[in-house]
């Protein structure tokens, strides 16, 4: 079964990240690279992407004639998706275990950041026979 692990950051945490020291940032990037490689080696990797930052984000709605109306992100938005992993695992517990590893990515001073990771199941077309 497939799960998407979504790393969400607050607007403030993106601003904080931009101020990290070079060393801290390099450690974080190295962790993310190694983490992706681990998922591949474990045979559970499906996809991962990092996203552009909230200051580039736009909210889009269809106007009367279907033309896009774009707007900056509303100031009241508190959480933004920073990036995600999709993994194919045997159980929800295994997905949670992987999410916890992602959450432990090092922050400033190498201390685990403990970022919240939202875990959601990806729906498939296969339905169990119930036999």
């Amino acid at each position, binding site marked *: 079964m497939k799960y998407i692990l979504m790393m969400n950051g607050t607007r403030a945490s993106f601003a904080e990240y931009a101020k990290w020291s070079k060393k801290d940032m390099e450690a974080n990037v190295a962790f993310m690279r190694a983490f992706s490689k681990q998922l591949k080696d474990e045979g559970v990797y499906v996809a991962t992407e990092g996203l552009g930052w909230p200051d580039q984000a736009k909210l889009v709605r269809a106007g009367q004639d279907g033309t896009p109306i774009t707007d900056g992100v509303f100031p009241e938005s508190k959480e933004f998706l920073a990036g995600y992993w999709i993994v194919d695992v045997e159980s929800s517990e295994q997905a949670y275990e992987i999410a916890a590893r992602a959450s432990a990515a090092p922050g400033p001073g190498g201390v685990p950041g403990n970022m919240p990771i939202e875990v959601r199941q990806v729906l*498939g077309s296969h339905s*169990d026979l*119930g036999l």
Partner: protein
Amino acid sequence: MTAQPSDPPIEHLLRELTPQVLGIVVRRFRDFAAAEDAVQEASLAAAMQWPRDGLPENPRAWLTRVAFRRMTDHIRSEAARRRRESEAALEMDQLAPSVDAAGESDQDDTLILLFMCCHTALTPASAIALTLRAVGGLTTAEIAHAFLVPEPTMAQRISRAKQSIKDSSIPFQLPTAEERAQRLRAVLHVLYLIFSEGYTSSIGPQLRRADLSHQAMRLTLLLHHLQPDDTEVAGLLALMLLTDARRLARTGAEGELIPLAQQDRALWDRQQIAEGVALLSATLPKGAVGPYQLQAAVAAIHDEATRPEDTDWPQILALYDLLNRMSDNPMVALNRAVAAAMVHGATKGLELLDALKDDARVAEHHRLDAVRAHLVELAGDREGAVRHYRAAAGKTASLPERNYLLAQAARLSSELPLTNEQE
């Protein structure tokens, strides 16, 4: 995906020959992991060359020769590596192949391969992938495609499975008589999982290629030929035939699920049903009745009813009673509740469901809510049914199933007085 066989007869031949050739190579070189890679490479080479150059005179000997050559290369490079490390020379010429000498043990080989690939030391996902490749003869790309994961991920999963087999040092031989029954159950379970995984609602052209249900039936038929006297192998094969016979009726034009009672029974595959029934009829009198045979018997009763109202529910209930006594499986208990409701009324079915509320294995399963919704609806409580259909929709991991459950809720709530919908 460029190295895929495009010619179906060649594709079928390769899948049939793969376990035979693999058996020969493993016997010769005693290294399952490397042999499996070598056979996969030989098979890919065949898929490229045979459509272009024509079939070789003896396709199996051709594959064996190429696989032996790959193995010899592998051993040479391993030896060279070791020589670099230890300066120890290894004489390789003794490994020149005597092609196709092990023909008579094909059948045992295939059986041993199945036992190895479905070893209980492996996780289900690893066992499935390895079985499809080593015994099913599918390419890594095809298996990856069927499970919608990237090819390197599937390659890694297979390679880890082989490593686990290596680490557990399972010998390449048939299990002892005592072990055999239990090991065979594990094989049947893996084949059943492959079938179940492939029993998908979307049968688009790209999914047909590596149609997992079809592969599961092919492998179970192979196992049935190897173990014709095992009644549960026959039972599983019958179950697959009788279930798969409804495939075309099971989904609508948009891939939406159609439940048994609403299926167009003219679309059921009568010939396949006849095959399944004949197999089951020949098997049941042999005596050793197990869960797969009983489930096949239930499937046969559904298949033999011309109209839903002709279904022999008392007999289905009797079969579920037997199954329930035989195994502690909450899914069986759920199905039994449905059958009891059809025989004795919805109240009886709901009573049986209540007993499952505290069973952690199904308490949070969408099927418990779905069955409850169905029975509550039968009992005439539309509002309750809407609530349970929606609860089930929130829990299922299948998109077509969620759409079906929400449609049931929508159908019922459109029949309700408007005030009930304004929450």
